[in-house]
């Protein structure tokens, strides 16, 4: 008895380095922020910081962030899905699949500062496409309301890594669709659309949702691309937090904690929604 107890304790010993690392550099820092969000500078419990988030500027920052993240996740999912379906379901020559997957691997990791530079050079005010359209076709994108340093500019830029990420994650799921399912549906009289609506899409739904949550969190926490693209001018949550950490622009450190706490809540919420929906839609799996 004592033997096995000691053995079990020794088993846990092997996990200690990981636990120490995770606690010190992931969990404790996060908890510190969370706890700080509910404390006064003197250390007393308060909701004042959370309430303090309710200013027009902070509300707007969250809202723009959510909009950018949601739209880039949604569009990334939709476009990435279409491309993944095109390369997996046999309508295109088999040769295009390998290069597309490889390229997606690269593009999904090409984020941050250089990505912003690439888009500035392409559709920024003096970018390649912008200039081309203006000189060759007389089309001035600005007149049509295009501005890279805006919400939509950010969305378009984020899509550069969101789409390939979706392709990478959804391709195995599409490969998992059995040919017989499609044939069984067809021979039972279903049209292609009915097959997708009643069989394929429900089967893929958890994967799509999961990727969507991942893409959302991915965009929501992205700081570098946004800062390199727009500087501190665009009012979104991560940039506001960045400015707060550097220079306490909110005038209260604890309000900064609350701002960061809000970000955790939102990405956490996205993932909770994902988990709940996933469990509900996976009743038919073991």
């Amino acid at each position, binding site marked *: 008895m004592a033997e096995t107890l000691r053995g079990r304790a020794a*088993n846990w010993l*092997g*996990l200690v*380095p*990981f636990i120490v*690392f995770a606690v*010190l*550099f*992931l969990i*404790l*820092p*996060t908890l*510190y*922020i969370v706890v700080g969000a509910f404390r006064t500078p003197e250390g007393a419990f308060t909701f004042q910081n959370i309430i303090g988030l309710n200013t027009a500027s902070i509300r707007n920052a969250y809202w723009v962030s959510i909009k950018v993240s949601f739209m880039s996740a949604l569009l990334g999912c939709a*476009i990435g899905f*279409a*491309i993944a*379906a*095109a390369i997996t*379901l046999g*309508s295109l020559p088999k040769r*295009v699949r390998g290069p597309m997957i*490889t390229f997606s*691997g*690269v*593009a999904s*990791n*090409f*984020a*941050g*500062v*250089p*990505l912003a*530079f*690439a*888009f500035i*050079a*392409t*559709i920024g005010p003096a*970018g*390649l*496409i912008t200039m081309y359209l203006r000189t060759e076709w007389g089309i001035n994108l600005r007149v049509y309301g295009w501005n890279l340093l805006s919400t939509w500019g950010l969305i378009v830029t984020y*899509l*550069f890594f969101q*789409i*390939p990420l979706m*392709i990478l994650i959804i391709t195995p799921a599409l490969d998992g669709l059995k040919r017989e399912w499609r044939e069984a549906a067809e021979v039972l009289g279903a049209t*292609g659309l009915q097959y997708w609506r009643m069989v394929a899409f429900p089967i893929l739904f958890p994967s799509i949702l999961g990727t969507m949550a991942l893409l959302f969190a991915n965009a929501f*926490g992205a*700081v570098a691309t946004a*800062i390199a693209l727009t500087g501190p001018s665009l009012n979104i949550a*991560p940039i506001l937090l*960045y400015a707060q*950490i550097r220079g306490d622009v909110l005038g209260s450190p604890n309000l*900064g904690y609350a701002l*960061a706490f809000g*970000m*955790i809540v939102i*990405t956490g919420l996205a*993932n909770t929604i994902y988990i709940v929906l996933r469990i509900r839609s996976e009743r038919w799996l073991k």
Partner: protein
Amino acid sequence: MNKVFAWIAFLFGVLYFILPLFGMAEFSLSMRRGVYSLDAYRVVLADPQFQATFTFSVVMALVTIAFGILLVVPTAYWVRLKLPGMRPWVEFVTLLPLVIPAIVVVFGYIRLYNTSSWLPMTGTATGTNILLMFGYSMLSLPYMYRAVDTGLRAIDVATLTEAAQSMGAGWGTILARVILPNVLPAVLSGAFLTLAIVIGEFTMAALLDRPAFGPYMQILGANKAYEPAALAVIAFAITWACMGLIQLSTRFSKHTRAMS
């Protein structure tokens, strides 16, 4: 109909990926008026700041990879061998960095490990560098852990361990001589991904005030026109190289598996 739709989707994707790359490449070559030239690259590469920050980031990446391997391989191995019940929990923790924004975590670092705290890591440059390295390890944890865990799934951990133990090997020997070589391709792909992430990383380095490549690029971007495009091309080439090396290492793994 299906075919048309598939081609449209595919070509849209190709254009979306190619145009920005083309744009940045073209821009990076346009420093001299009227002709294409490598001036922007020449200026960037000659910049001592570039050399210093780039070196800093590469070294950081290598240290991060070394630490990541030391942390992740034994942990993943141990969990598979002795604590299979804990696997979902460990996996959950390793996925947390995908949920909690990095900027929030680094905010916590700054407050938790500042000069007046119990562990004043940000007090010295070395301390801050170590803190940054831990931060990078945290960022790469989801990828590293998954890669290694997948690699371990393909081998029979328990049997290998028993075989090694029966020949008198200790834990260190088992890990270094038996387990690591078997998951080397997986470890390598995790390592190259870490390299790709760390070299251009901006948020943590900037907020911890370290002279890394990411913040350098951002500052240059705010002040120059053509050099940033050249930097973007370089960064893209590095990412591409890392991904190529990952593919190479997985191909290597298929090769060895076929041989065994």
